[in-house]
């Protein structure tokens, strides 16, 4: 178990052609083992490029990515081994399913790791357990619902038992029920294995409620890095980058405009509710003494 660190990481697409585009620039940060990190930023901010560097899917144009102090892009072997340590779930991962059965699809990763058949079997069952799809083992992935496919695809990555689980928009396109289920599965995996989780999300409310740390990307740079409390106490900066703030924060801001300043950080509903109740009780108390 070790931390992931990037040092002055940058990436340029189509270098040397007219289509040259710098996607990320000078990103330096360290993610300690076990942290729950949210990555936010609008489309084209570089966040997707950033996460593809965490398991050496992309080769840095500049800078380094280190895992436990070692450069993950050292050689061909290290670039392959890091895939087992850092599991990456792409956006709409259900599009990667290809095997005839759910079981075989989840087993694809562990088989690539060249584990013994018993070990592969154990991992497939364990991963399926995390997302609750054991009853679907013999079914064809193609005939399942969108939410089920999504969870199977996530199981396919979890089956490699990554120490770091990176997910790009894991709830995109799902209904509220489906979203809730997936987030619950991810939380479980983290709690039971102590894995680091890095999650890219447009959903500010979810990012605010679940994560311990937020990385905000803007125009290829790491614009903000802090706890949700720190980040969301600067809503004006987020709005200036064209990002939304969590809806409870938006309500708090609208209250502030009306001369009602709430105390304490407000980025989840329980916080907002508590703050309003405090303000109400204070007022009631005043009214009572009059």
């Amino acid at each position, binding site marked *: 178990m070790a931390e992931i660190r990037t040092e002055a990481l940058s990436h340029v697409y189509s270098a040397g052609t007219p289509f040259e585009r710098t996607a990320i620039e000078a990103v330096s940060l360290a993610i300690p083992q076990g942290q729950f990190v949210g990555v936010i930023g609008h489309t084209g901010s570089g966040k997707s490029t950033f996460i593809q560097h965490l398991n050496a899917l992309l080769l840095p144009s500049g800078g380094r990515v280190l895992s436990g102090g070692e450069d993950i892009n050292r050689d061909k072997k290290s670039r392959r081994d890091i895939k087992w340590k850092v599991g990456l779930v792409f956006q709409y991962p259900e599009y990667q399913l290809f095997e005839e059965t759910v079981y075989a699809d989840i087993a694809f990763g562990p088989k690539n790791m060249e584990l013994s058949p018993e070990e592969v079997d154990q991992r497939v069952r364990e991963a399926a357990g995390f997302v609750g799809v054991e009853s679907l083992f013999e079914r064809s992935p193609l005939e399942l619902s969108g939410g089920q496919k999504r969870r199977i695809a996530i199981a396919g990555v979890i089956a490699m038992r990554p120490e770091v689980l990176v997910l790009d928009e894991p709830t995109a*396109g799902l*209904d*509220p029920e489906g979203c809730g289920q997936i987030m619950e599965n991810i939380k479980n995996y983290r709690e039971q294995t102590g894995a680091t989780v890095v999650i890219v999300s447009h959903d500010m409310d979810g990012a605010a409620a679940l994560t311990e740390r937020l990385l905000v990307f803007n125009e290829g740079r790491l614009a903000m890095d802090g706890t949700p409390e720190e980040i969301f106490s600067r809503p004006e900066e987020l709005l200036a980058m*064209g990002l939304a703030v969590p*809806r*409870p924060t938006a309500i708090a801001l609208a*209250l502030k405009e009306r001369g009602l300043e709430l105390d304490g950080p407000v980025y989840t*509903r329980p916080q907002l509710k508590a703050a*309003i109740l405090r303000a109400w009780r204070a007022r009631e108390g005043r009214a009572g003494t009059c």
Partner: protein
Amino acid sequence: MDGIIQFEKVHYKYPEDERESLRGLDLSIREGSFTAVLGRNGSGKSTLAKHMNAILTPTEGRVLVGGVDTADESKLLDVRRQVGMVFQNPDNQIVANVVEDDVAFAPENLGVEPGEIRRRVDAALKQVGMYEHRLHAPHLLSGGQKQRVAIAGVIAMEPRIIVLDEPTAMLDPQGRREVLSTVLRLRREKGMTVVWITHHMDECIHADRLLIMDQGQIAEDGTPAEIFSRVERMKELGLDVPETTGLLYELRQEGLDLPLDALETEACAEAIAQLLR
């Protein structure tokens, strides 16, 4: 009173399914209205949408669009030119390699005269704010832009109704805002009838009517304010309520005297501010 779209005891079963996707559905949509349809995955809301322009026709019952039965094959084009459809995946509904050629597709199919097509295409692209991109290749546009092109492609047909089947499900928040505000503007400026299908609660608050689909039937029908204020019922249906309603509901349970129908952020803040002032 007859609506511009009329469902009469509509049943529908996909050939490969055992259960019916629509189970005896009655519905009348008034001309000029903005109806939002909400429901979890598999509730039948997409099937409902596909009945509105004869992509699907009922296995039982009937659907009338502007008085025309959608099952009448000889009137197929009459139905479809009245009802424009926008679908979920922006990539899979753009047929041409150049934005303006795509927008011209429907009027070309209808045999509209070339000069008139040009006029409609330019007008439609201006209405969705994509005129400057008319010569671009669609695959280089953002998701929100692609959906706006799809909307332009539909309005170039000059339909009376526009049906959008989860048009924002695959978009980022910015794209979502773009598409919603485009549709709201079209409604304001052209008085079009809009049917907006979604699973995002927040997108429904602008509608003047909200339908909740559940198991192939309409489970709730009313204004967004009426329906969202029934928080318990919404949870029962596997849906959520907008953040504003959720907050107001929880505060009411603590004994605060707040209305549940303040759906927009500003209205919600105003209600709370009034109480605390």
